[in-house]
């Protein structure tokens, strides 16, 4: 009974830490860290809630070049299930081989019940994307159901994918983060 009480107290403490954390100021600090790499987030509107955080209408620029706009970046800190959601992202200068020009939504989530995996879901110009990143193997695997005109628009990008049955594309890569 005592152990249960301590566990409850610990979970409550973590929730309090998240609720009382100066999330906006932490974001300002993050902005400064990114600016050292010439990456700037400008003209954004910040909305701070108890367990979530929104950055609205941000303009991203890298080395003085406007990369694009993101309608909403939403962070959810719920310990058991954490989300990072991007909505209405439009990239102007796109030099990234695997990121499409327009992203309707992108959800990167981490669930305590599958602690070794980060789950990625997205609907974008390229099509419907779902994937996982294995934190132990440091392996990224993505499945893509391409949109109608993706084969024409993003033929260079699709060359990085493997074609599977029924028009499904897959992408696998080991990415060493640490």
């Amino acid at each position, binding site marked *: 009974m005592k152990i249960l009480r301590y566990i409850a107290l610990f979970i409550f*403490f973590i929730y309090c830490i998240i609720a009382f954390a100066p999330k906006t100021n*932490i974001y*300002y600090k993050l902005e400064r860290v990114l600016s050292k790499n010439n990456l*700037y987030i400008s003209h954004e509107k910040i909305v701070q809630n108890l367990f979530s955080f929104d950055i609205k209408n941000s303009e991203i620029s890298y080395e003085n070049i406007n990369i694009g706009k993101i309608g909403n970046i939403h962070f959810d800190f719920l310990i058991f299930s954490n989300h990072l959601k991007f909505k209405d992202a439009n990239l102007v200068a796109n030099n990234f081989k695997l990121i499409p020009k327009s992203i309707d939504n992108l959800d990167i989530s981490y669930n305590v019940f599958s602690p070794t995996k980060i789950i990625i879901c997205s609907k974008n110009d390229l099509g419907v994307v779902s994937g996982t990143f294995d934190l132990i193997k440091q392996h990224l695997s993505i499945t893509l159901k391409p949109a109608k005109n993706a084969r024409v628009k993003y*033929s260079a990008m699709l060359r990085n994918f493997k074609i599977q049955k029924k028009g499904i594309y897959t992408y696998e890569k080991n990415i060493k983060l640490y």
Partner: protein
Amino acid sequence: MKKILSYIKILSPFVIVALFAKLIGVVLLMFLPYTSLEKDTFVPPSIDFRNYKLDKALGFSPGKEKVVKIKEKMYDLKDLVLKAIYKDNHGGVVIVVDIKTKDATVLSKGESIRGYKLIEIYPKYVIFSKNKKRYTLKLYDNSNIQDTVIKEIQKDNLVVSKKVLMKYATNFNSIWRNISIEDVKKDKKIIGFKVTYIRQKSVFGKLGLKKGDIIIRVNSQPITNYAQAFKIYNNIKYYDYLEVTVLRNGKEKDLDYEIQ
């Protein structure tokens, strides 16, 4: 009473934990910045305090100042190369390349590069000023690259060689031999650029542009001034895909190109 005391006994550790968490938040706040970092904040204020007249500010009528015209000595600017001039009734824009960093910059009248402020635009040269000295920069002319360019475009799948576009980016004046554009205005605002002349055998003709087309957007970005149009071209090396939206016979048409 006993019940209340037992509730307090159960809840008090939670209250203490919440207060402790709040305290951590407050301490953390002391080490974090309070303001957002905007890109614009890096632009220094351009108030010239030397020109501030105290008598005017206090309402005194100033005496007539003698205007002394001094014939200024002109210096040559050797750190920069002038790649292109686009002059119009409103002033125009120029593209200069820094010799040291090889970075190309689009400037309109009044803008500065490395402390040199662009003050005059002429058809063949421009004038900068820095520390009360005036510098001329003449237009750099490159060899004709036309013939080699057309061969490198694959017409069928609309794949454009990045190399081709980069060749144009290094010789902007060759663009004007093949295409000419003029701004289209609505309510005194530029809504796009009309193609008034195009050489069909040129790279622009092969890309599907036609005389009379009004270019309104590039990669979903509305083109509302000359500097913006030049900036897109100047940053062509960062693009993998180009979507040019034109108004043709009153209807919008997308011209899609993949850049490799």
